[in-house]
């Protein structure tokens, strides 16, 4: 597919460089892993970090030009998305029980443990940053 050259006009601010961001993201994730769901602190941390990234993504132009059009093969992405959404919708309507769990119910036992919770939070932050810089 067409992959236009990257833009070089906008340089990241000093604090937005990997040498700064990676340790900060690791630190935030290590704190997030210890915060239980439904707590005020967990809400504030997610809303705060998400809010900063949301603002940064809107306030700063993307680093690279997006594709002008998608190739025909993009339609393949519809398959896993439709499967996931249909299963999620069905299990939600059935009441999300152990026999018919939503994805959230399946994730709960994993997210109750500190290390997986921290690692997944770090993945969420990294992916958010990837979207912001795109």
């Amino acid at each position, binding site marked *: 597919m067409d992959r236009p050259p990257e833009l070089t006009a906008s340089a990241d601010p000093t604090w937005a460089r990997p040498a700064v961001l990676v340790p900060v993201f690791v630190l935030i994730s290590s704190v997030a892993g210890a915060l239980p769901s439904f707590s005020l602190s967990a809400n504030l941390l997610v*809303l705060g970090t998400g809010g900063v990234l949301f603002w940064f993504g809107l306030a700063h132009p993307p680093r690279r030009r997006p594709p002008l059009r*998608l190739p025909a093969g*993009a339609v393949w992405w519809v398959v*896993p*998305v439709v*499967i996931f959404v249909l299963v999620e919708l069905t299990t939600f309507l059935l009441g999300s029980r152990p026999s018919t769990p939503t994805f959230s119910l399946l*994730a709960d036992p994993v997210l109750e443990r500190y290390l997986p919770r921290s690692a997944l939070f770090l993945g*969420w932050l990294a992916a*958010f940053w*990837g979207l912001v810089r795109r």
Partner: protein
Amino acid sequence: MLAVGLYGVALVLAGVLELVARREDSQVPTVGEVCGFVMTYRVGPIPVGRIAVFGFWWWVGWHFFAR
């Protein structure tokens, strides 16, 4: 456990597609390229695509880590 299997199928399919997309001259875009394309959508001066994608990902984090 049909639901668990179908979630697995969806996730494995997505992983396979991402691997295929990363091959040279692939006709399948990566998930990042799809997101980049969606984020180009604007209504006048409002970057609706960026707001929607960031908003969705923000909600995912809130749903799994705060609720």
